[in-house]
């Protein structure tokens, strides 16, 4: 598959390069014949944007044989890269001076950048998620977190009853329960860290020498539960980042499409010359 993917990458890049070269040649030929190239590159750009947007719409027709999702993603990636070149040719490499055109260029480049960021995230995050102790389905994470909390409380209560001591329970109440009960903030979502888990585990390990046998058994269970909570948080933050990214990317795409159509209509209505 390595060779297959490398071959696919080379082939797609070659096709893209040929397409860009052809585009340059066509624009040069148009200029030589005094044809107004920006209209034609505009049509082409709009068509490319529609095809790029159709990638998501294709998912709604999963039962139809419209090609594999992987093939569509490849098309989306390379056509997306090509669209940037097409836009540069269309604008002549200048930033537009009209407010609608400026807005359109801004949302286009934001969409493009979000696409590049998404490509990175979709390649980097899966491998991070795969290194956790378990796999978690995103929608089930809140319920699993509640289960971890309930189980930890029950373990500590049981240990307090069996040991007749509250050393572990006191530590649990002040340090572990808040950690298990609270969800992480926005900073954690953007850049998750296991420092909190490590600190708690270190403190719990330090506490061991003061614990009764029953509490020791319970503390081992707490280690596992703290670890699981951390993994749940990590999965939630990474998976939600991917979902949020997709939402942003699709929203920007819609804006680009709407602004492109408005720009096109405006350009055609202002078109001078014969006819």
């Amino acid at each position, binding site marked *: 598959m390595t060779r297959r993917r490398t071959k696919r990458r080379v082939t797609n890049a070659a096709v893209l390069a040929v397409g860009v070269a052809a585009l340059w040649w066509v624009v040069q030929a148009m200029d030589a014949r005094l044809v107004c190239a920006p209209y034609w590159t505009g049509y082409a750009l709009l068509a490319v944007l529609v095809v790029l947007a159709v990638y998501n719409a294709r998912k709604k027709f999963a039962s139809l044989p419209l090609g*594999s999702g992987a093939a569509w*993603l490849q098309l989306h990636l390379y056509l997306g890269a090509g669209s940037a070149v097409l836009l540069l040719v269309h604008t002549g490499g200048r930033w537009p001076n009209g407010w609608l055109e400026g807005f359109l260029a801004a949302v286009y480049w934001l969409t493009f950048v979000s696409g590049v960021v998404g490509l990175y995230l979709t390649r980097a995050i899966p491998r991070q998620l795969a290194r956790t102790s378990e796999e978690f389905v995103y929608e089930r994470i809140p319920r699993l977190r509640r289960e971890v909390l309930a189980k930890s409380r029950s373990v500590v209560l049981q240990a307090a009853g069996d040991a007749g001591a509250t050393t572990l329970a006191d530590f649990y109440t002040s340090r572990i329960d808040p950690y298990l009960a609270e969800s992480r903030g926005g900073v954690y979502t953007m850049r998750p860290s296991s420092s909190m888990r490590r600190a708690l585990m270190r403190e719990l390990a330090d506490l061991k020498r003061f614990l009764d046998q029953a509490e020791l058994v319970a503390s081992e269970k707490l280690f596992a539960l703290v670890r699981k909570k951390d993994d749940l948080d990590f999965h939630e933050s990474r998976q939600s980042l991917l979902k949020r990214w997709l939402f942003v990317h699709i929203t920007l795409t819609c804006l680009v499409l709407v602004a492109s159509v408005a720009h096109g209509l405006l350009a055609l209505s202002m078109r001078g010359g014969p006819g």
Partner: protein
Amino acid sequence: MTAITRPTRWSEPFGEGMAADVAARLLAVEPFRSMDPAAFPPKLPLRDLLAGDTRIVKYQPGDVILLEGDYGNSAFLLLHGTARAALERLEGVSESAKPSLVSKIVRSVAQSLAFHRVPEVRRPAQIHPGAGGPLAARGERDTTRLFLQDVPGVLDASQTAVLRAGEVFGEVAALSRTPGVATIFAETEVVALEIRWQGLRDLMRYAPAFSEHIHRLYRENSLAAHLRETPLLSGLSEQELTEVAAATRFQTHGNFDWHAELPGSSGDVADGDETLFERIAREPVVAEEGQPPPGLLLVRSGFARVSRRRGDGHQTTAYLGKGQAFGAAELAATLLEGQPAPLTHSLRAVGYVDLLRIPTEVALELILPKLGPESLLELASDTDAALPARTLDYLVDRRLNNGTQAMVIDLDRCTRCDDCVRACAQTHDGNPRFVRQGPTHDHLQFANACLQCVDPVCMIGCPTGAIHRDGETGVVRINEPTCVGCSTCANSCPYQNIRMVDVREPGGAIVVDESSGLPIIKATKCDLCADQLGGPACQRACPHDALVRIDVAEITPLAEWMETGPADAAVDDPATEPGAAHE
């Protein structure tokens, strides 16, 4: 403390109304009359075996006794009346016709355009047995019985063979865990003795004449076909194949109830403190490393583990399934070197394994010389499987090697976007037929989707044969009109890959049984999108090449995918160090 009597094999006899006097009367009927009761062990007397493992079943004219494609669980001895075996596929009875291109297009478009406000919507014709077909049903849930509505019409339109009192049928399907090849129905009122496979196996073990009779039937009906399909024997003429078939011996090792021993099932033996070495050592040895090969062993059904001694333990080097051979490498070496070559590996039954043993001299005289020098050298080179031993152990211990279409997800590439789940739901009445969860090994997840098993134990006990293996496509499917919602298949599936659902009418209300008022329940499972265009929607939907439907019963496809796919992800992807941010 509550003390109870430990349940024994016949605490729950197969036939509830099987009185001792009926069992006694059966002893006067052939083939039991010819059996020697003294040959049966004291713990397993013939009379008790008949009382516990058989039952008398009465059929009305037209009742279906065995459905083509139905997974055999019992053999039948006809005691009274006449039955008919259809010699050709009965139109509309077995759902094994390959869906046409037009019907696939219609189905695909319909599913695409359907707006699933509620899942699992069915029209009455989709879930009602006998709606327009030749079959109808009577009875409820697991006592449901299918019958042909127009027996004379079927007899006129189809070629059938007559079965009379004293004849045994269904034995090959029951013993080899294969789908029945013909539909058998009662022509007159029929009284039959149904012998479940546990009893059938014991009868064969302790009554040599009966065993010989069953094996003769198998030899006459199925052995030649099995041998013909074996690649090693492909160069043999019909005459040579007949000679090989005549010399072939049958062997059975292990426990037929392997699914009760699967980790996570109620009869779990793999949990606890038992190590892998202990588990392997506990598996019945078929052939021992260092010993001369017992012949060429062909797996007829079940699974076997190939292992090699490593220190004090055994390392799994491969696993074998139906149609695969053991001992060929050593026999090839014997032929090439001119002196006996001992086995380089051991063979053990995993669960159970039925083997065909072709004696060494027959293999050396008839089979191996046909292969040619190059093939012989290749065979004798005896390379180990391309999968690491720990992966082989993982697959065998969880019986994932049962799967011919396992859903394997590379977690290093999967973005958890659930496009696969949505695609499945869109193609299956708004409800996905799998859960994106399941056992994980390294970065591979074996998702809870039907594996399309080599040995589909879910089909055991289905009272109507609704769950069947499609004769054309090989896909294990559920025929909704005849599914009575008894959950037998869902409870039997050792991988928990079958789910029971409430079906709804187009308005969204749950469809209920008109007599009891209880919801109509149907079994659902992955059907590999067999009646739609383009193959499994889950695999097609994955934008990252992370999900694959793959044959794990063979080692090579998974080895190739594992060797190339994950390595590619590691080399090509602009990923950070795994878990760097997390740790």
